[in-house]
């Protein structure tokens, strides 16, 4: 069973457990494992809970925000389950004939036709205006449909609740002026909605004992925290005493109520049921609570802390232990491993094997996406429109929370476009978070093409370019910022206080005195990062020191300063900064990482190991931390540990050649265990996958010639021969019509196994990951390519004589760069780059290269007959 408590945070839970006020959770922890769980960026619920259910990042699973265009593409609706592009854990189990129940998961509307019960996330939504006795349940909220009425009657309406439900949260509620202060309404609504979800859960658990997986999601801890955390002790300076006294117990109250519901849930399952309870992120509850937020969509996510809670209890789960390094991406891989099923190699998470008492060795398959069988997903042709929920009040709630723009603030078109842009921004952040910078840049550059550029777009664009050392572009963006061509998020007009139900009319404007300071601070930080990138360390340090003086409480500037000291080898200065940071925020993995690196450089290997383990315990996905940990272990002679850490660095970053080399050295020279190294290196999940040969490149880069060459060498070609030879391709095109629609339908690929297929370069990213590929990538001077393409278009009458499309050269160059980048890290793809000119002028040499690439299976003599120097007609 997986229980989701949105936003749950140890800093609230621990004091309550210490006081004996969360006994159910305490019993789970006493009999199981617990620890932090790292979130993703952006920390927004629809994306995060889908990552939890799929093991994939948002750019893979396709859920990109709170809103999406409806089926007409003209209006916005709340995000539906039909936008999820991959299988959730319950779909995978469905294919294994297992039964799942899913309740309230975000997003899960319309409910999928799974083997089991699914209650969508619109099930519990309640409005005060409705009469609870005539309270319609929207179509599509319940599967199976014949249970619609049963579950409709299990919902609790907020108007049913009484003082008996409210006073435990707000003992002095009678003092509240409800005309002005909407806090009571919000609390009552959240209480009713989480009770509705709990009722659906308890009904299922009492009436069905034969399920394999039950997933339930509770949103109230998040929404209550956004509304009431500002009143949580200790009192924040700007909060009036009267409000503090009224609302200081609400956050604790909602946690305690969830513990009561958990107690009941545990009564309804047996001890053999494995329970995982988690949150998608934490919530700042102490001095890290932001007082002011930029007035931009989803700014309240800045109240989210980077680590949530993870608890697991079950028959093969360790007891009373703390675990480290969990990420929300790990939940689905862990569940698959528990069920004895393989993990998809396309999943971004890893099984949390450290929680198991008896070792379970995970197995891997390339992807679950190509596994056939009834998954319980909606069919491809399914249209969600008849189940669509256009709930103005629900939209207004999201707007009130600051997650989306208010439907009233802009006209529909503007609102629509802004929301589409915002989803694109979230997509770019997902790529950024996965360190796929070129993809993030492509989106952010497009977003930045309309003026004025939003500062948040520019900020991420800068970070991406910095990561790729594109200093020139960074300086251009910085100049735009200095010249005020960027719409700043942080200025006097654009700051708002965190959401405040107690005084909604005063919400919008809270003056900041930091206008000039903040802008200067931002520019100094960017300037410093660019200088650091240019190895102008001392100038960078001067910038960060100035920035730090301007804003004493800015964590960002102090971490940058620490990194700059580290880069300029002032390790003791860096250690001073990082040590202060971990006192300020004990969850700062980057500060622990910095301390680890500095101590390693100063030859303090024991300290380095401690700090690097702390850093990895907080954020596991940091190949560099594992690598430096290995280096420190190596220095003190712990070679087994060093090999393990090198291996982990290599698993997380398969292209980290230095880790591979060091691992080989340790295994062979120090552990005298060559077999171990060979085993690690030969672990190939694609070893049983079928192979397809691809000839690729830009059109007119010699791809047809290469197809002829490989055919002559004895490789069968996959072509429909629909396009006949002509004066542009004297010996034929070797194409297949099906390739052109590979992005929509790749089912034909099973017929191309062990054959050669021509695929133009821009279609390569659509290749399904279930196969292995050997790609011969043709390269040719771009001037020649464009001239040749222009001649061909002229011959076809599609371009005027003596003109050429040179303007597209830049676009071709960018496409080629992107494709090469994409090819770079794919474990199932081998590439041989061949220059067209070489193939013509040094044919024998290229044929030998090809033969080596294709494991000496080519008939090289026949291939030599194909090369015809007369074919090189367009050259500089």
């Amino acid at each position: 069973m997986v229980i989701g408590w949105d936003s749950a945070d140890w800093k609230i839970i621990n004091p309550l457990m210490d006081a004996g006020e969360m006994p159910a959770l305490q019993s789970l922890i006493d009999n199981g494992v617990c620890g932090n769980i790292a979130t993703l960026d952006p920390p927004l619920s629809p994306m995060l809970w889908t990552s939890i259910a799929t093991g994939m990042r948002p750019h893979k699973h396709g859920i990109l925000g709170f809103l999406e265009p409806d089926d007409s593409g003209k209006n916005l609706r709340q995000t539906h389950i039909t936008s999820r592009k991959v299988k959730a854990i319950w779909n995978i189990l469905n294919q294994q004939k297992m039964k799942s129940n899913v309740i309230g998961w975000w997003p899960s509307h319309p409910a999928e036709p799974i083997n089991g019960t699914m209650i969508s996330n619109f099930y519990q939504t309640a409005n005060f205006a409705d009469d609870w006795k005539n309270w319609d349940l929207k179509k599509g909220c319940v599967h199976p449909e014949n249970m619609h009425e049963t579950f409709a009657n299990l919902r609790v309406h907020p108007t049913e609740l009484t003082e008996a439900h409210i006073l435990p949260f707000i003992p002095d509620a009678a003092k509240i002026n409800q005309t002005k202060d909407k806090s009571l309404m919000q609390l009552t609504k959240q209480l009713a909605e989480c009770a509705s979800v709990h009722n659906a859960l308890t009904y299922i658990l009492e009436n069905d004992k034969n399920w394999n997986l039950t997933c339930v999601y509770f949103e109230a801890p998040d929404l209550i925290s956004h509304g009431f955390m500002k009143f949580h002790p200790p009192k924040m300076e700007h909060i009036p005493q009267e409000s503090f006294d009224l609302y200081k117990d609400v956050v604790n109250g909602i946690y305690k109520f969830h513990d009561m519901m958990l107690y009941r849930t545990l009564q309804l399952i047996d001890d053999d049921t494995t329970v995982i309870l988690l949150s998608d992120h934490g919530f700042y509850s102490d001095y890290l609570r932001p007082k002011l937020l930029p007035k931009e969509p989803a700014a309240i996510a800045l109240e989210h802390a980077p680590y949530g809670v993870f608890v697991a209890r079950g028959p093969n789960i360790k007891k009373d232990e703390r675990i480290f390094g969990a990420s929300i991406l790990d939940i689905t891989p862990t569940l698959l491993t528990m069920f004895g099923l393989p993990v998809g190699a396309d999943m971004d998470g890893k099984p949390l094997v450290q929680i198991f008492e008896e070792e379970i060795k995970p197995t891997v398959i390339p992807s679950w996406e190509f596994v056939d069988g009834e998954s319980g997903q909606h069919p491809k042709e399914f249209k969600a429109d008849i189940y669509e929920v256009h709930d103005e009040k629900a939209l207004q709630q999201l707007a009130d929370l600051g997650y989306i723009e208010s439907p009233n603030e802009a006209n529909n078109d503007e609102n629509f476009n802004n929301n589409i842009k915002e989803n694109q921004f979230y997509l770019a952040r997902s790529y950024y978070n996965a360190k796929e910078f070129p993809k993030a840049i492509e989106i952010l550059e497009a977003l930045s093409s309309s003026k004025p550029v939003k500062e948040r777009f520019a900020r991420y664009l800068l970070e991406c370019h910095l990561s790729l050392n594109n200093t020139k572009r960074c300086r251009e963006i910085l100049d735009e910022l200095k010249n005020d061509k960027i719409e700043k998020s942080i200025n006097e007009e654009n700051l708002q206080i965190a959401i405040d139900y107690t005084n909604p009319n005063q919400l919008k404007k809270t003056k900041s005195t930091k206008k000039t300071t903040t802008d200067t601070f931002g520019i100094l930080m960017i300037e410093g990062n660019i200088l650091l990138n240019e190895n102008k360390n001392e100038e960078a340090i001067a910038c960060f020191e100035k920035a730090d003086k301007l804003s004493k409480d800015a964590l960002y500037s102090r971490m940058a300063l620490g990194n700059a000291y580290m880069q300029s080898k002032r390790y003791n200065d860096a250690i001073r900064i990082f040590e202060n940071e971990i006192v300020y925020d004990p969850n700062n993995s980057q500060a622990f990482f910095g301390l680890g690196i500095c101590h390693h450089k100063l030859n303090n290997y024991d300290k380095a190991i401690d700090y690097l383990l702390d850093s990895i315990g907080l954020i596991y996905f940091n190949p560099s931390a594992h690598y430096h940990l290995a280096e420190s272990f190596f220095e003190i002679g712990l070679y087994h540990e060093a090999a393990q850490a090198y291996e982990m660095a290599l698993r997380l970053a398969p292209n980290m050649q230095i880790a591979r080399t060091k691992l080989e050295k340790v295994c062979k020279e120090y552990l005298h265990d060559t077999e171990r190294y060979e085993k690690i290196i030969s672990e190939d999940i694609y070893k049983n996958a079928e192979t397809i040969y691809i000839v690729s490149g830009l059109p007119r880069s010699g791809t047809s010639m290469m197809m002829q060459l490989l055919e002559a060498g004895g490789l069968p070609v996959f072509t429909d021969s629909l396009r006949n030879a002509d004066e542009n391709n004297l010996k034929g095109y070797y194409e297949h019509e099906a390739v052109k629609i590979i992005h929509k339908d790749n089912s034909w690929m099973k017929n191309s196994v062990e054959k050669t297929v021509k695929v133009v370069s821009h279609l390569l990213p659509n290749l399904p990951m279930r196969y292995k590929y050997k790609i011969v990538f043709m390269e040719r001077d771009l001037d020649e390519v464009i001239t040749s393409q222009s001649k061909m278009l002229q011959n076809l009458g599609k371009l005027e004589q003596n003109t050429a499309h040179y303007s597209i050269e830049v676009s071709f160059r960018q496409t080629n760069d992107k494709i090469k980048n994409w090819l770079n890290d794919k474990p199932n793809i081998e590439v041989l780059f061949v220059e067209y000119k070489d193939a013509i002028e040094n044919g024998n040499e290229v044929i030998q290269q090809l033969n080596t690439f294709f494991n000496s299976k080519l008939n090289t003599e026949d291939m030599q007959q194909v090369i015809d120097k007369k074919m090189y007609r367009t050259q500089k």
Partner: protein
Amino acid sequence: MEEKEYEIPIEGSLGLLAIGHIGLQLWREKRAAFETENDEGISIERKTDSETNSSNLYFGKISE
């Protein structure tokens, strides 16, 4: 384990909510029975928030 009889309070409780659907059903039955037995003269007082047009039960008193 000794079973104790539990009187369902007419105004409900967090404990009843935490029991889940059975708690809700028992509470609704109690309210329905209460209203049937007392359909003349006794009601749960409801205040209406005129600005939001929403019912405000939180401080409703059971009155005769």
